[in-house]
């Protein structure tokens, strides 16, 4: 199953990048730099989406005591965190030529930073607890608290931002050129499939790690031999 996701991801990446770089026209206001959008936007969207999925799996694990759910949550976290980081990095590099500074304290970027902190907290808490069951359940609770808080945090940051009037990120005028939209969509799918692929491989490792002492794992190696 994993190869299917990996290859689809690769195909969409190629398609998206081709559309984004070669077919889409130069933006009137932002010049060539706007092409960063094709990775910045998918990274942002996915980092938020993954957090919600992660919290969802975590909640399932907490409520129904299903171990696999918790393992999925743990598997999603690093990918989500890395995407949040990429969102910030590409956002900064997009911001510098556009608005003259590496960082703009606008609502979205600041919320993305906080999201990164939430991811790191989740990973850190899970890593600090030795007992896997307690680790799963504690970080699950944290993820749930976090996801409930995210709307509150986003709202408060927006509030904070409108008072300290700073630059606001706007897209290319009114509507986006159709080719840009297609490129964006392709890249979005590409990153999504990539994230799924990474998560699946990771969860397989986690399963093996947790179940390493069991019969079926021993036999699995048997089959491989």
């Amino acid at each position: 199953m994993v190869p299917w996701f990996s290859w689809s991801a690769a195909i969409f990446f190629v398609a998206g990048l081709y559309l984004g770089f070669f077919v889409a026209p130069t933006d009137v206001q932002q010049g060539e730099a706007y092409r960063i959008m094709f990775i910045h936007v998918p990274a942002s969207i996915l980092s938020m989406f993954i957090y919600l999925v992660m919290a969802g799996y975590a909640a399932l694990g907490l409520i129904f005591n299903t171990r696999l759910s918790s393992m999925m949550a743990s598997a999603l976290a690093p990918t989500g965190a890395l995407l949040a980081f990429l969102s910030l990095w590409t956002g900064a590099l997009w911001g510098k030529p556009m608005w003259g500074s590496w960082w703009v304290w606008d609502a979205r970027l600041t919320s993305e930073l906080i999201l990164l902190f939430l991811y790191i907290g989740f990973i850190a808490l899970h890593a600090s607890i030795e007992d896997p069951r307690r680790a799963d359940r504690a970080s699950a609770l944290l993820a749930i608290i976090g996801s409930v808080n995210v709307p509150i945090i986003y709202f408060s940051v927006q509030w904070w931002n409108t008072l300290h009037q700073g630059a606001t990120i706007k897209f290319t005028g009114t509507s986006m050129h159709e080719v840009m939209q297609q490129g964006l969509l392709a890249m979005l799918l590409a990153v999504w499939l990539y994230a799924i692929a990474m998560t699946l491989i990771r969860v397989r490792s986690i399963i093996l790690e947790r179940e390493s002492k069991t019969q079926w794992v021993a036999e699995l190696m048997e089959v491989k031999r």
Partner: protein
Amino acid sequence: MSWAEFFAMNGYAWYVWGSYGMVLLVFLIEIVMVRHRRARILQQILLMRDEGGD
């Protein structure tokens, strides 16, 4: 667009390629880490199994 223009990105080269470069780097690092983790656990299991005595 010629190749030269493509790389220059109208003066925004550092930003655009800095972004995509980091993306590529992060993706590569992630892939390596994930595969390494899997290889490590598989190796551990093999070791355990052999020690368990066949």
